[in-house]
């Protein structure tokens, strides 16, 4: 039986109560992308500032449940200031964790040394979401929106 504690870890509740990187960025130079979860009405507006292949800044506005809010906050902390290829790797490992991608050895290796270890460990607090399948959409909204904001890899 899935337990509430698996879902609402302290880190998640903390990021829900005190979300990181809230706000807007001037566009341009930042890009603005909207994310939307029609099932629960979650809305997310993401501002990403990419320069020379690095995601130099990220901010967001919107509303949603604790999972979607915490996930976007955790994501922002993990990807801010990171080179795009690492950001893409982080997105992939997150989706693998959510069961949306087959884990592949190379991806697994890549994510091991991808950037800030502490943020990556915090993201793992979302692992319990897979036990609550309907909430996976909440957790992935920010990540899909970010993927969209970055566009196809060049």
């Amino acid at each position, binding site marked *: 039986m899935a337990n509430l504690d698996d879902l*609402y870890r302290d880190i998640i509740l903390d990021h829900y109560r005190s979300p990181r990187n809230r706000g807007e960025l001037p566009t341009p130079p930042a890009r603005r992308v909207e994310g939307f979860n029609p099932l*629960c*009405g*979650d809305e997310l507006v993401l501002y990403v500032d990419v320069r020379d292949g690095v995601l130099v800044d990220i901010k967001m506005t919107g*509303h949603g449940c*604790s*999972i979607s809010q915490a996930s976007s906050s955790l994501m922002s902390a993990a990807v801010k200031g990171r080179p795009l290829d690492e950001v893409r790797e982080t997105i992939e490992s997150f989706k693998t964790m959510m069961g949306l991608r087959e884990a592949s050895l190379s991806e697994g290796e890549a994510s091991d040394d991808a950037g800030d270890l502490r943020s990556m460990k915090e993201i793992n607090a979302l692992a319990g979401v897979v036990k609550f399948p309907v*909430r996976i959409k909440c957790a992935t909204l920010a990540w899909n929106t970010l993927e969209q904001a970055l566009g196809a890899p060049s």
Partner: protein
Amino acid sequence: MTSYDPRRVRIDTPIQERVINGHPIAYLDSASSSLPPRAVIEAMSRYYERHHANVHRGVFQTANEATEIYEGARAAAARYINAPGGADEIVFTKNTTEAFNLLANSWGVANLRAGDVVLISEMEHHANIVPWFHLRDRVGIEVRFIPVGDDFRLDLSDLEQLMRGVKLVSLTGMSNVLGTINPIAELTRVAHDHGALMAVDGAQWVAHGVTDVVATDIDFLAFSGHKMLGPTGIGVFWTRAALLDAMPPFLGGGGMIADVRLDGYVPADGPARFEAGTPPIAEAAGLAAALRYLENLGPEAIVAHERSLTVDALARLHGEFAERVRIIGPLDAVDRGGVISLDVEGVHPHDVAQVLDQYGVCVRPGHHCAKPLMRRFGLAATARASFGPYSLTRDTDALIDALGHALTLFS
């Protein structure tokens, strides 16, 4: 006299024997869909085990039986809403939503022209909004909204103004978000005085009320089987025979024709004209059983029971949580059904529902297919608890208890 005992109804619905996460289920989502009693489930099984055949064109015995069961359901639905023309005024659809699409695409396309106004309200379910937007795109009608006041009721102060150019007023009988029950009979009089017709969304109104289309004098009615202890896959569209007879077909196919040639076709008369293809036969058997079951309980008795649950729940929610839980709907139980939408401070409805599930309490988070209403109150979603004929005070107990846990977790 009826012998209504909600505890008996609860025993009759097998799903309520379930234990969820170690707690007896407290099903508070009847506004989404109700739980069918054994009699309904068995009526459908029996239909498939003994009588199933396609209807209408058969001569052999099971085909006759299936036809009798199907047409019998039509008569039962007519009786339940007091249709003046009887079974000939009942069209079976797949749900309330299809009934509104039928209304817009058949009566609407035939009778409305560019500039004509369909007057709906800010508290409508999308089923009574989107089909009119489609008609606006197709024909150029105007879709106008009666505003909803801060008291969670229709704001009728500018009604005379709003009625200008209106050909159809189409309103929910009871809001599936607020619980508000609208003054349908009065508004029908106003509509008729202005030469407009009156359509009612009965998805909640018929399921949780005593419906009399003659007494209210309405012109169109839509409702769903699954909201009133019946099965999924069946809904009802009603209109008076004179209007029905003048309505052109909507969906085309078998069963709705009198003749088909290479160069065109002649539509059938009566409800058949609107029932293209093999209809929901087993579902009609289930719906008839549900109506029989409800008639035995007595719709008045159910309304009274649900009202007393609502009065109690409103008072206790308010008393227990004061400002931390805001009720999005009238606080007085007058003209109000058993739907209680909650806005919990600091806890997103999705999380409310998730925590409540841990305690076996089933409430629905979301916009409840009423996004314009959500926007009206600056909300993205609510957590909604709603009662059915089997609901008991212990469901409210469980709700309040679990809400306490949610508030603690997120405090």
